[in-house]
């Protein structure tokens, strides 16, 4: 009964004309930046954070969520047509999608991707509705030790599931935790690492840090690396997949939805991992795996479904536990904090408009995306004509003006610029900014919970393992560490045997014929289950 009340309240929020406008804006911006190779969802959301000061909390999250799942749709378009993944999760789609386009089947590839994304999104929203309230109820009983364990798990998974070096990610997570201690100590009020600067007493501003690392840093990095986009040739015909296409991919869509949902719920899950896992699964199940990489429609349908499903279910841990599962969720977490709302188990009770409104908006947003994508693919592709240099120049200026507008303070512009330079350098040197920002957001929660736990237990670290829930999570963390150590060792041994003359990097980039499965196994602590 509660559920129905909630849903109807959600639709009341989401169907408010203003919010319909925000959903529409969100999915439209999302699709556009998904198409543009120079700007991803993280950068866009980071750049738009100042905007959320101005609007209602529910509208803000509706807008940002729309950008996130909208970008998952948009990324498909360029992957299929040009083999240019507009965002990371679409890399997998290039394997078969581009082959389909070369065989003149671009239309069905895009069509099935849109249909799969829609199905994955909707099924995932239903899962979210069913799973979130009971989880939140359970989480109300969580004490500080559970929060320490959960936050630790989140950071650990983000460092392990990233595609970069786990050790470097861990080191950046530590840096993020350290940066989050700048300012006043949450319990005693002592100032830490402020170097006497009054501006630092409240700590580093999350928005400025995020805008710098992701917004400016990513723009600079991409500007250096983006190649010129080739002219777009040819028309896309027959966007609707045939009956046979639909029959061939229906299984992949259902499996992709479930897989994507499950991976998205795990901290550290999200687009890339889920689409890789789905691709690996489809390939393993196929009667004739050799079709994959040559234009198998399941290879497009499964991953596209999975990445959209996971981008929806990633909201589960955020909205119920207050733990952001990935970097985009960390940004939305920050946006909510700005509004004075702390996401957590009490969110559903205290701010039902936010919780149910966002969920209902996802239904509407996915419908809009389906309606936008199928007829307008040709229009979106034209966006690629915007040159990267123009895009970067304007995005930077908007960032600078935007960050000034938060506090009308020039200091914030310097912070953004500083973190922008840092983010760019980090990317150039293989240090991921993602774990840093995630840890920066989780840092205060983690520290407070850790210190409370210590007070509770009288300084006994055993409290983290002796309580059943936190003990279980700690055990899971240990399993992940052991599992990934064993897996990487086995991989290295296997490589030792197969290594051809072309070995290049020490972390095992072999010229194996099955990159997808390898890439998937690389980040598959959760993917294979």
């Amino acid at each position, binding site marked *: 009964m509660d559920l129905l009340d909630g849903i109807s309240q959600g639709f009341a929020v989401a169907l408010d004309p203003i919010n319909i406008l925000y959903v529409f804006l969100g999915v439209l911006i999302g699709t556009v930046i998904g198409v543009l190779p120079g700007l991803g969802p993280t950068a866009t959301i980071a750049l738009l954070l100042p905007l959320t000061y101005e609007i209602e909390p529910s509208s803000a999250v509706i807008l940002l969520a729309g950008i996130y799942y909208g970008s998952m749709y948009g990324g498909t378009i360029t992957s299929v047509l040009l083999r240019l993944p507009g965002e990371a999760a679409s890399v997998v789609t290039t394997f078969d999608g581009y082959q389909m386009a070369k065989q003149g089947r671009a239309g069905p590839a895009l069509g099935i991707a849109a249909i799969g994304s829609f199905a994955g999104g909707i099924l995932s929203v239903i899962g979210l509705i069913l799973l979130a309230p009971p989880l939140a109820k359970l989480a109300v009983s969580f004490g500080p030790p559970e929060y320490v364990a959960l936050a630790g798990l989140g950071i650990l998974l983000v460092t392990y599931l990233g595609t970069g070096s786990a050790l470097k990610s861990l080191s950046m997570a530590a840096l993020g935790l350290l940066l989050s201690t700048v300012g006043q100590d949450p319990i005693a009020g002592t100032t830490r690492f402020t170097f006497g600067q009054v501006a630092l007493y409240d700590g580093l501003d999350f928005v400025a840090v995020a805008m710098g690392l992701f917004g400016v840093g990513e723009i600079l990095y991409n500007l250096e690396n983006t190649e010129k986009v080739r002219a777009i040739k040819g028309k896309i015909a027959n966007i609707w997949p045939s009956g046979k296409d639909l029959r061939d991919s229906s299984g992949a869509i259902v499996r992709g939805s479930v897989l994507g949902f499950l991976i998205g719920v795990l901290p550290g899950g999200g687009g890339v991992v889920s689409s890789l896992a789905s691709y690996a699964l489809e390939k393993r199940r196929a009667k004739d795996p050799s079709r994959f990489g040559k234009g198998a429609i399941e290879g497009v349908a499964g991953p596209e479904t999975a990445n959209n499903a996971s981008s929806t279910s990633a909201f589960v841990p955020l909205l119920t536990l207050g733990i952001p599962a990935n970097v985009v969720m960390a940004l939305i977490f920050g946006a909510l904090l700005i509004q004075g709302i702390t996401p957590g188990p009490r969110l559903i009770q205290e701010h039902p408009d936010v919780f149910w409104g966002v969920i209902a908006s996802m239904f509407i947003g996915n419908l809009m995306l389906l309606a936008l994508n199928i007829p307008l693919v040709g229009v979106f592709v034209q966006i690629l004509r915007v040159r990267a240099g123009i895009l970067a120049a304007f995005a930077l200026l908007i960032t600078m003006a935007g960050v000034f507008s938060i506090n009308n303070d020039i200091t914030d512009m310097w912070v953004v610029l500083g973190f922008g330079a840092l983010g760019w350098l980090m990317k150039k040197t293989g*240090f991921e900014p993602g774990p840093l920002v995630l840890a920066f957001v989780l840092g205060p929660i983690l520290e407070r919970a850790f210190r409370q736990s210590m007070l509770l237990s009288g*300084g006994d670290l055993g409290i983290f393992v002796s309580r059943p829930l936190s003990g279980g999570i700690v055990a899971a963390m240990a399993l992940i560490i052991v599992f990934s150590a064993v897996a990487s060792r086995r991989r290295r041994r296997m490589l030792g045997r197969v290594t051809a003359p072309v070995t290049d990097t020490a972390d095992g980039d072999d010229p194996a014929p099955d990159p997808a499965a390898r890439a998937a196994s690389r980040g598959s602590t959760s993917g294979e289950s």
Partner: protein
Amino acid sequence: MAVDRSSAAPERGAAERGLERGLAGHRPAGRWPRGQLHRIGPLVVLGVGVSALVGAAGLALGELTAPGAGLWPFIVALLLTGTGAVLVVVDDPADYEPWTRGTARIAGGLVGLGVFVAAFGAVGFLLPSFLMLLLWLRVFGGERWRWAIGLALAGSVGMYLLFATALGVPFPADVLLIFSRG
């Protein structure tokens, strides 16, 4: 599955780089010229870690039963120092991208942005934003002068109207507007 890199996507972030490395199976040599330079990155991390350790020890550490302000930062700094130290030894040089002319231009662009921020505080939004757009469009965008000037003019005025006029953001007093009013 051969993926020819010439058309294989703009590189975006280490995440995709990892993927693409997996995809392509090979990667153009991206090593720094003189062997050991890549250790600078982890060394910087290590340096930050050690100074944070010192800083945290200077704040009262307290004990586990009664944690002081410095205890948590100390734990975190230990993690940072530890990972940094290991990375100095084991880090993979291939993670580091070579410095090219493009890199130098980006660095120059950053300096340009710094000048923009400083000038923004001194003479307001319009002139610095016009010059910054012009620099970026002409140097990084490679736009022709005519386009660069037109876009920069439209961009700076448009942005001023959006932020200062429509959204009411109090930009610093604008020297151009003061002049035009006499």
